[in-house]
């Protein structure tokens, strides 16, 4: 088992407009990408638990051309930059994914 943070070459989050956060996981090679993509460790169910939201709100796309996985979720709090928001650019929302263990 290895941490997702150690397997990924890029693990980032960012706004996709003021209503959504998109998380990108780029892997250094196809084998590592397939290892994560084919595992049951990173599913909409897992992500919905980590981010405390409904499973239907989580969209995961596998992107073979870039050895990458993309996860898009709605912002849970207010819209970007509204009172009560903690991350206007959405650039530090990847924290909950770091310690996910991949077989």
């Amino acid at each position: 088992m290895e941490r997702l943070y150690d397997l990924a070459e890029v693990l980032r989050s960012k706004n996709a407009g003021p209503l959504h956060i998109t998380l990108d996981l780029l892997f250094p090679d196809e084998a590592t990408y397939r290892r994560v993509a084919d595992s049951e460790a990173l599913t909409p169910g897992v992500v919905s638990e980590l981010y405390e939201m409904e499973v239907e709100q989580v969209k995961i796309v596998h992107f073979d051309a870039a050895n990458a996985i993309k996860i898009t979720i709605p912002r849970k709090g207010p819209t970007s930059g509204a009172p009560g928001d903690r991350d206007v650019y959405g650039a530090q929302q990847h924290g909950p994914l770091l310690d996910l263990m991949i077989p």
Partner: protein
Amino acid sequence: MDELRVLSVCGNLGYGFPKTSLDNGLARDPHIMGADNGSTDAGPYYLGSGDQLTKREQIRRDLGFSLAAARKKKIPYIIGSAGTAGGNPHVDSVLDTMHELAKRDGHRFKLAVIRSEMDKEFIKRAVREKRTRTLGKLPELTEEMVDESVRIVGQMGLEPFMTALEGGAEVVLAGRSCDTAIYTSYAAMQGFDLGLAFHMAKIIECGAQCALPIGANDCILGTLREDHFELEPMNEGMRVTPGSVAAHMMYEQPDPYLFYEPEGVIDLKDSEFEQLGERRVRVSGSRFVQAQTPTIKIEGVRLRGYRTIAVAGMTDPRLIASLDEVEANVKNTVADMVRGALSPEDYELRFIFYGRDGVMGRPSAEDQGTPREVGVVMEAIARDQTTANAVLSLTRSTFLHSGFEGRKATAGNLAFPFSPSDFEGGPVYEFHIYHLVELEDAAAPFEVEFAQVG
């Protein structure tokens, strides 16, 4: 026209790009130059206030170099989403800098200015005719939401840019724009494939963000041909690879295979990426599917009040362990103190505890034990600045001296790094409109005005 060379100056005009990269780009004889100047990423403040994220000095530098380059080559130069948010004050500010530079450097050109602020009645009619749609968590648009907005802008697509270019504009300064329209409009006029043209635009609108090493603040050349396009960073220290270009299609958008524009959807499922030499990539196979009814995205903000904040640090372990108790005490005490003058709905009070759960707003599973230091940001929002200042001042002094169970450090709870400790944040806005509007004519709300400069 067999080949269209498009030079993207950078991902956000004002962030600064190397002059040598621009010179390299010019040496390739581009047919057109473009630059994006806006985004919603920095939040609702800019649209609401009319201020710019990039300051005048930054615009002066980047626009100075790039405008001189375009005029030297006598090629059209298109700037989209002027002044961060693309509203009238934003366009006017960049326009003012442009006039100043034209005078300083002796440029003469035909200018087209395209404004993007939406008339409220125009949007309300769309609401009544059920031509608006929510894009997620916001409620469906109502006439009340339109009325309470401070400013609404629409993202213009290809047509207004084509009108400007067909009218002979040598420089186009546009309000809020689809980033792709900046770079696709000229290609569309020349009859190039729209799938390829949009895809190329989608990549180069971020400058050399798709390159290695990543460089949004750098120039990239896109060369569009009949059945493919090529990308080449203009900084000789950078290169693009099929992997870096493919990876860029994930950046800041929800789906790497599809993206939506007012005119239709661009399907990248069959796109192919091929390395050319060390530093270039060829892309083919991207497809455009026309929409039945064009839509534009509109963005609007409302005023929520005025903000005052204070920042402080804490090291006392019993205090840090008691922050929930202290927060509740402070909020209750403040509510007691203002009773009669303010009711609970007249102000908002928030505490962000950095070092505990400042970013995520909840403890992470990893958290064990008490952090050695925690920083607090106290925030008050009220209907006017004076009230926000008073509420924050009361909150800060109450927090400083608040008691809690087992307190040992009885002289004060907070280490303030600054005197004065409190900072006025000014007006606070909120995106409450981020919706699609269906239009028979997607160009209708965007007026193109021509003027001679110099």
